């Protein structure tokens, strides 16, 4: 499928034409018929957004370079210094897969899933600021300064799929925004699994059941007063109170108590390699286990986790920490993929992975040349990976340039570099999710087309 470039001017032009057309052909009547013909929303898709915090070095993972071609001998021309020989604790070998996807030395167990992975390379994050890059990917819109604009894609997707789940949108250590979506889609945000468990437990010390009912009756009655109904924040507070109440009455905490001494938790600890000790529940492994539990038990539609942190390695900590920290996140995601793939989805014969999309991202990447301190600074070039429902596997679309690893325009249909195409950005990736879910009317106001090359079918 070929698309023309959709910039702001074209977008407005097409809106005017559409508006005029609607006026001529009967306005709402046509709208209704268009709505009826719109693809059905796939209610069975779930989403995991895995954030690698701090800015990952894509040379070590998603966008490697062969040291035989890029080395100290020619780095003054290529402006690319893989530096694999400087890494402590790695042989610096590229990981080559049968599907043709190559990865850096720290891709870890994620490489095992190469046939299911789609990697988007040569993206432009258009910023060198952590907050701006992170918020750009979360919302699909460039922030205003540091201020996020619009709602998180996780929020939008949770809203579009309805409020059947007790916690439609769950977010651990990842920012979330809701500026224009229903309150039920607002993320339940927590800084770790322990706080989530605590939030899901009934309040303590306890009042009697009947006193709790009376308390609820009083607060519900207050919420129906006209003064309350005039205030958006009071309405929001009441909905949040009810959500909190619902969360604590269904004993959901047991699903996330990974350190509990029972066979189910023992199995999960083993499957996700959750470390012991007090910090174990804060680990990426525990977060991915939480994501699996939340999705597979029908608790959440979208889950955001911090798969890795501490990647802002400007100094010689790059040699020691950047790679292993990335790999910890990749390994955790790999275990999540394995779990979802091996679990049957509601007696359908499908796997949970057929109904879940995982998106791995970071705010930007790091400079292809090492700095004078042996680290890497911020680079606006980005990359991300997707796996799961509706995603074409075993494919890398786009490419950073072979001089300075700069973003390059691609043909969104084929995924190959094309100077007449568009530079892929986070909004293209998020629009792909929207299209895959049947939302083709730019409901999230992303103003771009999806990357068809990574859409299955």
């Amino acid at each position, binding site marked *: 499928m070929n698309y023309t470039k959709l910039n702001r001017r074209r977008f407005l032009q097409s809106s005017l034409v559409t508006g005029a057309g609607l006026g001529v052909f009967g306005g709402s009547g046509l709208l209704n018929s268009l709505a009826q013909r719109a693809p059905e929303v796939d209610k069975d898709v779930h989403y995991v957004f895995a954030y690698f*915090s701090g800015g990952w070095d894509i040379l070590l993972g998603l966008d490697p370079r062969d040291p035989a071609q890029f080395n100290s001998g020619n780095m003054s021309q290529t402006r690319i210094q893989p530096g694999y020989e400087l890494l402590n604790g790695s042989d610096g070998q590229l990981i080559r897969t049968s599907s043709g996807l190559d990865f850096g030395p720290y891709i870890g167990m994620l490489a095992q899933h190469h046939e299911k992975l789609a990697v988007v390379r040569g993206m432009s994050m258009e910023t060198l600021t*952590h*907050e701006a890059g992170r918020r750009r990917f979360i919302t699909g819109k460039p922030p205003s300064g*540091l201020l996020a604009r619009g709602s998180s894609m996780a929020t939008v997707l949770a809203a579009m799929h309805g409020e059947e789940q007790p916690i439609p949108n769950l977010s651990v250590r990842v*920012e979330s925004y809701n500026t224009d979506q229903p309150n039920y889609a*607002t993320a*339940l*945000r*927590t*800084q*770790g699994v322990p*706080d989530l468990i605590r*939030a899901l437990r009934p*309040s*303590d*010390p*306890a*009042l*009697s059941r*009947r*006193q709790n009912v*009376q*308390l609820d*009756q*009083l*607060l519900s*009655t*207050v919420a*129906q*007063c*006209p*003064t*309350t*109904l*005039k*205030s*958006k*924040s*009071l309405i*929001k*507070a*009441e909905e*949040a*109170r009810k*959500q*909190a109440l619902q*969360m*604590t009455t269904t004993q959901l905490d047991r699903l996330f108590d990974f350190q509990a001494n029972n066979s189910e938790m023992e199995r999960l600890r083993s499957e996700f390699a959750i470390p012991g000790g007090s910090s174990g529940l804060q680990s990426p492994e525990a977060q991915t286990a939480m994501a699996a539990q939340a999705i597979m038990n029908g608790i959440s539609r979208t889950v955001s986790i911090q798969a890795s942190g501490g990647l802002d390695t400007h100094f010689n900590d790059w040699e020691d920490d950047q790679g292993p920290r990335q790999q910890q996140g990749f390994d955790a995601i790999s275990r999540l993929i394995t779990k979802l793939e091996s679990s049957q989805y509601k007696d359908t014969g499908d796997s949970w992975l057929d109904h879940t999309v995982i998106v791995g991202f970071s705010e930007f990447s790091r400079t292809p040349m090492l700095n004078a301190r042996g680290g890497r600074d911020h680079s606006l070039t980005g990359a991300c990976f997707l796996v799961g429902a509706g995603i074409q596997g075993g494919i890398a679309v786009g490419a950073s340039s072979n001089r300075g690893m700069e973003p390059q325009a691609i043909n969104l249909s084929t995924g190959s570099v094309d100077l007449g195409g568009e530079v892929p950005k986070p909004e293209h990736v998020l629009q792909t999710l929207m299209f895959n879910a049947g939302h083709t009317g730019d409901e999230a106001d992303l103003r771009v087309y999806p990357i068809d090359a990574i859409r299955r079918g």
Partner: protein
Amino acid sequence: MKMPRIVASSLLSLALVSFGCDSAEQTSNQPVEPKSPTVLEVDGDPFLGKKPIEQGALNETTAHHNAFSQVSLMPKPPVEEAPYRNRRRMDLDQLNASLKTVSDGLEWAINGQNQFEVLASTLGKPDFNTITSEDLDPSAMFLKFLNDASRDICFQMVERDLQRTTSTRVLFKHATPEMTMVNNANAIEINLVYLLKRFHGMSSVASCDDCDEDTPNALGAELQQWVWLYQAAEHVSSSPVDAWRTVCVALINHPDFYMY
């Protein structure tokens, strides 16, 4: 004959519904007709050369292009409402300080650790590393932990008050733990008035300086909700102490406490 508890509870619930809001604020079920936009009639049509429109008239409301069409240039005015300020949620420091103030020095702590500090990042407090502004959403997470805090503080308050002399009590200031709705309804209501002022700053109901035997008749629907809660809680627990605990928890979980 003694009324069964479940029937009495149901009657109490009905009572709550009946005086849930101030009667002056009740929303009418009748749909409100939006006012039609004011149309300024302009005689004549400039294009027909009958009578020129004065400078600025077009900007005001309407224009006639000809005798058969009339276009309003002004949007429909919104339905008028009384001015209303949207509420803001307290930040964690304010909440912690408020709880200390209303409880006369108690804080939500487990093993000596203030729980608002332990939960600071989950509750959206900035760390000035990745988060630079506090999330003041009245989120489900915030309300869950506010509920936890309220129970902890209220149970502490009750225990401490039971040890204190009457003059230094905070929760049982105007009603002793032995008083009930049956044997001293007036004292219960006076204490509720005092607590509403202490927790919510409610000055619209009579303050305790004004409390006397006639006070209950002078109180509004706001107080009646709290009388209902006390009465219902006392009814199901048969314990004034439990009832005051319930009232205390409700006072903290009420938006008038944590939003301003």
